[in-house]
Structure formats: C-alpha cells, structure tokens
C-alpha cells in the first residue's frame, strides 16, 4: 500500500487513541455535554438485496461494467448483502463532537473498514451569522441524493453517475468551515475547505469511465482498474487508492473546495461547488500510482413542486491530467462531464422516483486517447416505502454506454445493462 498510507494512518491513530482513553476515564455529566458511549451515540443500519442483472462483468470484478453487480451476458439473480454501517456520534462538549462510521460492503467482493471519521464544531450562533466546521475524513458536500451520518441514498438504491463517482474517488481529508446568513428573505450559506490525500481522483473515471453504484471506497482501501494495455501497465498500477497523498508527507500541496448555496424566498435551492485537488501530475509512488490534477465545477438544484413532489438536478464538468507532457499534452488529459434530473413524488405511503442520467469523458492525452472515451446514459425507476426501523425499495435501472477499448476484453464497444433490485433496509 505504500509508506505514505501507513504514515497517514499512524499520524491519526495514536493521538485519537490517547484522546479516547482520556475521555473514557473522565466521568461524564449531562450538564457538560459529554456523551461518549450512551446508546443514543450509536446508529446501526444495514441492507440486504435481491439483484437480477444481465450484461457485462462489473468493474468491481475488474471488468468495464458500470454497476455494482454484473454477469457474463445472461441474466443472473442472486441475494446479496448490501452495505452495513455502524455510526458512532460522540459529543465531547456541547459544541464539539465527532462522527465515526465503520462500514461493511457485500456483493461481488466483501470488504469492511472505516468510511468516515471527522470532528464537528457548532458554536452558538450570533444574531446575523451561524458558523460551523468539520475536519477529518468525510464526504464533500456535493450529493443531493445522500443523507444521514451513514451517507445512504434516500430515494433509490443506486445513486447517479456524479454521486457514484464522489463516493468512490472524491475522498479527501479536509478541514471545512461554513458560514450561514439570512439576507432579508434570502438564505445564503458559504463553505470553504482545504484538503489533502485525494491525489488520485480521476483514475477510475479515465481508465474505467463513469459508473452507477453505491459501493463507496473505504479508508486506505483500493479499487480495481479494468485491464490496461501493455504500454500503460508499464507505468500505472492495476488499482487505485482514492485516499492517497502521492507526494511524500501529508498535505504538502493542499487542494481546496468551495460551495455556495442560495435559497431565495421560493421553494428552490441552488448550489454551486468547485473542487481542485492541486495534485502534481508528475509525481508517482513506488507502487506506480500517480498524482492526478483534477478540478471540477458543479451545479445543484432542488425544487419543491407542491404535493410533496421534489425535483433534483446536478451537473458536473471537470478535467483531470496525469503524467509528463509529450508533444503538447500530458499522458492523460480527460475532460469529463455528467448531469442528471430526478423527480420524486409520494403516492400515499409509497414514494416513486424517476431519474435520467447522461455522462461522457473525452480523452485527448498523448498516451490515453479517444479509445478511452466513455459516453452513455441511464434511466432509473424506484419505489420506496417506510416502516418504523425498516425501508423497502424496488429499483429498475438501465444503463447504455459506448467505450472503444471494451474490444480489449473481447466485448462490443456499446454495452447495455439492466438491473432489477429489491432491498430491505434496517435502521436503529
């Protein structure tokens, strides 16, 4: 995994362990706000699913398939463990707390580990502004489809292509600050963050393309890449660690993200987001993982349409570059973009959702050219019903994409895949 990752882990683990030991020894009292291991400091959630899927082998198995499950052409039906999350939400003082999420993921490959670990700070607001902060390993505030401390998808099983990519490759360790203010009838919220250890974001997008799945990357775990041609395999590892600082040390070249949310006095919310990891595209580890200079702009929209109906849309466009310049372009120069629109409406106790998604990548690097381009769309229908502690979901998803280098594994460039899933989610 590399000495970099080990250094990162050691740097965090020992101080955290000492702090926890000191706090355990301190007698808590309700008035101080200290709450460490009481039952309400824990949340457990998990899901099991029945998956029916056709089409190509999944990327999780080292193929080019965009879904969490795959097949070898024929229809495959199997029960699966989905995601299990254990959330620990201690409170150290009234305004300082933490969220730590451990997760197990089932399916084609089973793995378990740390999903998030961050401190939260929320002091008493002033009359005009409210300030809050977070620091640690956490999801950047991009997705409009996820909610909760365990970052689960609310209205369906599979998130959109944009939010799937956030969950798999946009994994920074960040220090984030947020200011909220009301200007007349308008609400504004501005967020800024400095981050590190997300130098490889863009690797999966380039070598595998976009995907649609809820298999997030756990801390220090790797994700597989599809087979690389022999030239690339000479300098790129067959896997990627999304949580990685390629330069020696930690946060030598911090990146940043910034977000602005505007809520006018109508039931619409608009979000703008910009990300730049400022990685060095010419830096490489001993395991042949490179720095990927990745930046993107993102726009989000949520609108209440009345009768409980909600419209959601996100659009993202970015660029990633990796490697040395040869003849005017770096080895990898990938312009990627995606957008979706979804509509959710309650019908009695059942919530129905529909979503259409489009995505593409455009590779004009000196080593990675247009045979790596990924163009496609997806459509999804889902139904959700809630009971106390349980949620039932059914989802039908179809994805169609074109990718020239599928011929490397003997497949047609255009592949279509349909997936029907039924899921039961439990939450305490």
């Amino acid at each position: 995994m590399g000495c970099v990752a080990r250094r990162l882990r050691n740097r965090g683990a020992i101080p955290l362990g000492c702090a926890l030991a000191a706090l355990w020894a301190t007698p808590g009292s309700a008035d101080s706000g200290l709450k460490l291991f009481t039952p309400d400091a824990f949340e457990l959630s998990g899901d099991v699913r029945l998956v029916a899927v056709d089409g190509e082998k999944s990327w999780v198995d080292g193929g080019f398939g965009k879904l969490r499950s795959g097949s070898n052409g024929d229809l495959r039906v199997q029960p699966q463990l989905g995601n299990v999350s254990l959330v620990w939400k201690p409170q150290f003082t009234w305004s300082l707390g933490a969220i730590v999420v451990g997760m197990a993921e089932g399916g084609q490959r089973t793995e378990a580990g740390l999903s998030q670990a961050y401190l939260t700070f929320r002091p008493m607001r002033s009359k005009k502004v409210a300030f809050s902060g977070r620091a640690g390993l956490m999801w950047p505030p991009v997705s409009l489809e996820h909610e909760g401390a365990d970052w689960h998808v609310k209205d369906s099983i599979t998130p959109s292509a944009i939010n799937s990519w956030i969950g798999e490759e946009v994994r920074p360790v960040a220090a984030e600050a947020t200011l909220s203010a009301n200007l007349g009838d308008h609400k504004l919220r501005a967020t800024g963050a400095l981050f590190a250890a997300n130098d490889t974001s863009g690797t999966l997008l380039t070598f595998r393309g976009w995907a649609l799945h809820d298999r997030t990357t756990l801390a220090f775990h790797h994700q597989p890449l599809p087979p690389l041609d022999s030239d690339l395999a000479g300098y790129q590892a067959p896997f990627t660690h999304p949580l990685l600082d390629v330069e020696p040390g930690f946060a030598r070249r911090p990146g940043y993200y910034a977000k602005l949310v505007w809520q006018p006095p109508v039931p619409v919310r608009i979000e703008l987001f910009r990300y730049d990891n400022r990685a060095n595209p010419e830096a490489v580890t001993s395991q042949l993982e490179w720095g990927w200079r990745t930046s993107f702009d993102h726009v989000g929209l949520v609108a209440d349409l009345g009768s409980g109906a909600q419209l959601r849309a996100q659009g993202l466009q970015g660029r990633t570059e990796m490697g040395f310049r040869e003849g005017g372009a770096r080895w990898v120069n990938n312009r990627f973009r995606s957008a979706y629109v979804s509509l959710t409406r309650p019908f009695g106790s059942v919530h129905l959702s529909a979503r259409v998604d489009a995505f593409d990548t455009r590779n004009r690097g000196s080593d990675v050219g247009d045979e790596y381009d990924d163009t496609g769309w997806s459509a999804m229908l889902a139904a959700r019903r809630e009971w106390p502690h349980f949620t039932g979901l059914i989802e039908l998803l179809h994805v169609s994409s074109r990718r020239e280098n599928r011929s490397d594994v003997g497949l047609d460039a255009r592949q279509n895949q349909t997936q029907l899933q039924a899921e039961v989610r439990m939450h305490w």
Partner: protein
Amino acid sequence: MVRNLLVALALASAGAPLAAAPLSVRVVDASGRPVRDAVVTLYPTGPAARPARPGGRFVISQQNLQFHPFLTIIPVGGDVSFPNFDPTKHHVYSFSAAKKFELKLFAKDQSRTVHFDRPGVVALGCNIHDQMSAFIVVTDSAWTARTNAQGMVMFGDAPNASGRIVVWHPYLRAPGGELQQALGPAQRSASFQVRLRPPPAMPMQDY
C-alpha cells in the same frame, strides 16, 4: 345634602363602568383570502385600557425536530417551559429584544422554564436544527387573540371606547412586522389587508 354630595363623589371617583361592545376584526391577504394565526391586539385609550392578567404557565415542546405549538400568546409575567421530547438534543435560542436567552436541552424529558417580563414578539430558533422556528407573543393588553381559519377575531368583552388595533403575523411584510389602525369610538368592526411573505420552504441540507 352632604350625604348626596358624598354619594355623587363616590360614584364619580369609582368611574362609570363602560358597557361591553363586542368588536370583530378581520384579516385578509392581498388576494382577499382569510389569514389565520394573525395576532390581533386591542389597546383601548384612557381608563378603558386593561393589562393582561399576569402570570400563567405555558409549554412549548420540541418534537420531531419542530417546536409545538408554532405560535403562543402569553401575558407579561408568564412562564414558558420547553420540554424536549426528541431523541436528539436541542439548543433553543432567541435574539429578540423582548427576551434574549439560550437553553441547552439534552434529549428526552429535560426541560427549562423561562420567565417573560417584557411585552413584544419573541422569535425562537434551534442552533442545531435550522428548520425549527416558533414565536411567542408576550402581550400587555387584556384583549389579544389569534385569527381563526376565517381570518376573524371576536372580542366579546371589548370596552365601548376608541383605541388602536395592532395586527402581527410571523410572515407579515410591513415595517416592524406589524400593522396598526385607529379604532373610532363607535366603530365595532375593523378589517386589515396584509401582504405576507411565503413561509420558509425547504431546510438547507445539514452537513
């Protein structure tokens, strides 16, 4: 004759009791639709004025990440307790001039009581949950009520005197958030047309 004079003086100093003259007030919005939960206060002029009977105990609970009830009318000198029925803690606060306070309420059944000794509107919020909002109208007049679904308020025991009527609503678009009208001595009904802001729509995502 001295006794008649004394009786006359006694009657004069006691003041002739004013007969009750019921007063109805109607509040509608810009399109003429009735406005409910507008707080209407009658201030009769001179000796007819009467403060609200002070004291009383009131309850504003936190449940399902909201305050219940949204609007409470209490007299000056009233006490409000804030029981927390949610599994999560709440940090209740107010920056209103009538009462500035903050309460740290740990989950489940912890409650604190606040004494309100000045008239005015108190806007409540929760520092942790931005979507929580409620209002307390602390009144110094005996005639304060909220409009019903027809936008109507009836003061059955209003004195037969002139005065002024004040209307307040949490989403009212007016300077100071309230509108006033003078009430003539023989006037027994009043009508207000108000412009309202749309209610707060969606909570910002919490992160």
